[in-house]
């Protein structure tokens, strides 16, 4: 589906604006453990940038084009990564989603703590990794919904033209 009704001014504005939205979304995800924001909010901001391009350019001509394989892969990485991190906490700490990167109760071996320690001064452990995985899943999931709706719209328009 190509959106030919959109004005060229809007098309020239859409991509730079969406790149700014995407970078701001990434920043929101990465600061999620110390500032307001986090995985869902940042992921929604990234999806907002991509959706802006999809609405302005249309599904076929959008400069940011997510394929079905890409969407499937990153949805799976987000969900499975979250579960795997939770299971690592269960294995080493005794409870699901135990923060093995911080280890408040000193029950995890120090080499495991070093692996999962997020490289910053706040000692947040695995919380930033959760934000990143949730952000991946949310941006791909929200964009997939809009892609499906645009696909349905183009199908219904084709049907109307046939009738």
């Amino acid at each position, binding site marked *: 589906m190509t959106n030919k009704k959109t004005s060229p001014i809007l098309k020239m504005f859409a*991509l730079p604006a969406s790149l700014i939205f995407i970078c*701001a979304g990434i*920043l929101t*995800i990465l600061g999620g453990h110390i500032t307001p924001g986090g995985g869902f909010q940042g992921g929604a901001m990234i999806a907002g940038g991509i959706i802006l391009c999809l609405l302005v350019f249309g599904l076929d001509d959008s400069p940011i084009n997510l394929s079905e394989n890409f969407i499937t892969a990153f949805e799976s990485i987000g969900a499975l990564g979250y579960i795997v991190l939770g299971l690592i906490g269960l294995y080493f700490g005794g409870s699901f989603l135990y923060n093995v990167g911080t280890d408040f109760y000193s029950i995890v071996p120090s080499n495991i703590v070093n692996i999962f320690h997020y*490289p*910053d001064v706040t000692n947040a452990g695995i919380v930033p990794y959760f934000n990143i995985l949730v*952000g991946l899943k949310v941006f791909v999931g929200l964009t997939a919904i809009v892609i499906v709706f645009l696909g349905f719209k183009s199908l219904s328009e084709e049907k109307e033209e046939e009738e």
Partner: protein
Amino acid sequence: MINLGPIIFGLVFGFVIGSRLRYTEYFTNSSLIVMFIILVLVGCLEGAFPYYTDFSFSTGFIAAAIALVLSKLIFGRKRNTN
């Protein structure tokens, strides 16, 4: 102290999304350079974020901007010919 977290994961996220960019009628190599300059300006104006002590600009934002442009140039696809 330099916080590596936002820099590393900003680059990773930027590479993931930048690999899906493709050229269109309104998006060429020259416009990519202009967009990169705009993104760096926005990152500098945003100030030190999410950590307030390491740099005077937003490290995650600029890392993401650099990765977006680089991955577009390395992995990005050509124009849709359909």
